[in-house]
């Protein structure tokens, strides 16, 4: 019986822009942290490769997986940034925004740290399509 799950690299321009952004941000932050030119290039490239691998398409879902070595967090314990007492806080909106923009946001422990999974249903012209991987 044929496999019903198809994993396809996400090759739309928007994802490439996102990867470029990830790379640029890594370059900027690494430079600000004082890494040498060679190390900045290596860090940026690692982030770019990681970002490329992070994007995949499973059926009609765009699935983005980001892993780090941090301890993670309990999503149920994150303060609500819309609560009046939190409205003027200068941080604490990142996960809220991810949840607002994506269909599914999951954080779970991985073997080496924490895995963040973002899922968005594909609803554009390519929904249901079978584009080949890059």
């Amino acid at each position, binding site marked *: 019986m044929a496999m019903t799950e198809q994993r396809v690299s996400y090759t739309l321009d928007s994802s490439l822009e996102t990867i470029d952004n990830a790379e640029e941000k890594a370059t900027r*932050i690494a430079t600000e942290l004082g890494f040498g030119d060679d190390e900045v290039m290596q860090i940026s490239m690692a982030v770019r490769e990681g970002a490329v691998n992070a994007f995949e398409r499973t059926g009609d879902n765009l699935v983005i997986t980001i892993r780090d070595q941090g301890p993670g967090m309990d999503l149920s314990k994150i303060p609500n940034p819309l609560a009046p007492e939190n409205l003027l806080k*200068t941080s604490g909106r*990142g996960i809220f*925004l991810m949840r607002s923009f994506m269909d599914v946001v999951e954080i779970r422990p991985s073997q080496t740290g924490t895995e963040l999974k973002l899922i968005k249903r594909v609803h554009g012209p390519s929904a249901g399509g079978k584009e080949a991987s890059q």
Partner: protein
Amino acid sequence: MTMKVSSRQVDGVTIVDCSGRITLGEGSVILRDTVRDILGKGNKKIVLNLQNVNYIDSSGIGELVSAFTTTKNQGGELKLLNLTKKVNDLLQITKLYTVFDVKDDEAAAVKAFK
């Protein structure tokens, strides 16, 4: 594209024309330093013109909040002008639209200061 700012005075109000991206790192730092400089010079009526700001992340939103509260704590007032749809949507989602005084006309923004 990194963030760029330039300031000008209109009837005692400092208008900061911002362009580019207000994001983690340089963009947020530029905004913070700019507002701090303006307040340091004794100017307490500030308008951030965000007409050409095409992207802002959670760090940038935090920096807008910080600019707002810092100005207010020093007895001043900070307003936002000409939000792009993206920034406007973010302020709606985060309910900060109810906190900021948002204007879409520069003359009206200047006039609105007490």
